[in-house]
């Protein structure tokens, strides 16, 4: 069933259109002068001005690995993130921690940890799934490269971005 919408009845002035047109022109003119005198806030001039200092804590930038205050790399190469990653951006090559190492009881660590930033969709599932609080989405977002290989973050780069993160649960300290 069709709905009949009643057309509004226009007065003489409205039918002339000219007052409406002039009103509209007035609005755009106001915007023009406000922008011209810099009274309107416009978008940031990107390369010079950046959002970086305004980014909220929960900002989802590039995923990166973190170390804790004891300098231990938190990733235990359980490969859960590799498994859950929707675009399969993560590749982990695990290795055993040698017995003379201080953290030998952790048993496993990544030998190589690669995130392909061309594939990454910044969904944050890796951070959510990680049982060790080892991978976090940080505030870096501007990555460029001239080759595809440049866009793959290796372990070294990931720790560079991630840095040290304090105040996390350190369950390996208690475990013998």
């Amino acid at each position: 069933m069709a709905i009949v919408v009643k057309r509004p009845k226009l007065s003489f002035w409205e039918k002339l259109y000219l007052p409406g047109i002039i009103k509209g022109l007035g609005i755009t003119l106001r915007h023009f002068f406000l922008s011209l005198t810099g009274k309107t806030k416009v978008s940031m001039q990107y390369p010079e001005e950046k959002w970086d200092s305004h980014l909220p804590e929960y900002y989802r930038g590039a995923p990166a690995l973190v170390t804790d205050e004891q300098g231990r790399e938190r990733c235990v190469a359980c490969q859960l993130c590799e498994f859950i990653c929707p675009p399969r951006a993560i590749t982990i090559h695990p290795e055993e921690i040698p017995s003379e190492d201080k953290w030998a009881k952790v048993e496993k660590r990544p030998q190589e940890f690669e995130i392909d930033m061309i594939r990454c969709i910044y969904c944050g599932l890796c951070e959510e799934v990680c049982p060790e609080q080892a991978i976090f989405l940080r505030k870096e977002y501007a990555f460029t490269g001239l080759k595809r290989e440049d866009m793959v973050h290796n372990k070294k780069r990931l720790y560079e971005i991630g840095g040290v993160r304090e105040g996390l649960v350190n369950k390996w300290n208690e475990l013998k």
Partner: protein
Amino acid sequence: MDITFILISVAKIIGLVFLTILPMVAYSVWAERRVSALIQDRVGPNRVGIPFTKIRLAGLGQPIADGIKFLLKEDFTPSHVRKGYYWLAPALTMVPALLTCAVLPFGSELFGIKMVIADLSVGPLFIFAIASLSVYGIVLAGWASNSKYPFLGGVRSSSQMISYEISLGLSIVPILMIFGQLNLSDIVMEQARNGWALLPLWGDRLSLKGFLLFIPIFISFVIFTTSMFAETNRLPFDLPECETELVAGYHTEYSSMKFALFFLGEYAAMIIGSGLAVTLFLGGWSLPFGWLVPEDGASVPFWMGALHILSFLGKVVAFILFFIWVRWSLPRFRYDQLMRLGWVFFFEIALFNILLTAGILLFVK
């Protein structure tokens, strides 16, 4: 035909067309983008300045970069087009737009030479005649592209331009009646001495008759300006190329410099249209309130001639800004509304306006 006349004419053509109008075309594109950005609370192109430096000049290098881009892009000719006309069409939109500037008086005198390329006795008629040829470019582009959207754009454009040419022509008849001539230089001179058509505040026109005549002149001005928008396919009437329905209308199949020619043709037509409106309604090159009007037969000093040219260009620039302002304020008309406006309202009002002017001229002394 002596050689000095030809040389002077060539100098005037180069000075007006290549050193004034074409750069103005390029920079009106830039102005369009900057002004539209400001109206919409954005920034617009503000980056391109002098290459390899950090100097930006508020983006004034943008038109040059755009031009280089247009020249270097691949000039792609689709296989299904009618080649000859496909190549001819862009030139046919650009050339008439530039030809019409021949009769526009763009200044008083410089070194004792009249600042108009051809001082014809049929100025406005000449402009309408040449401007009416610019339909061919669009129609041929639409037809030669041999696909649906361009064709619909071409059909729309031709009917729109033919319809609005009538109200455009009729709307200036009152002006011609008031000034009693068709020579644009003389019309401007008359306005310089006795008050602009739209500003009758000095000279002979500061009288009851002048004020009464202001009414038909103002009606003329509204109709003329609106029809000019339709003739140049500018936004409230840009149905030939309206993106939402026709992709890009008649230039859908064009790329590279051929597309640029359509684009530049539109802006050139806009500049010439502004020039004509300024000449007929806003006193052409003259300054307001009868300042610095050259005496009959007396030579005009260089600074005064230059000032007159600047005055003309300033008015044209203001008019172009008005064009841009309107474009980014008003939504597009529906096609039947456009035709109704042209044939039912403007045509009748323009005819009535002629009658009104004749009445005032006849009965008010």
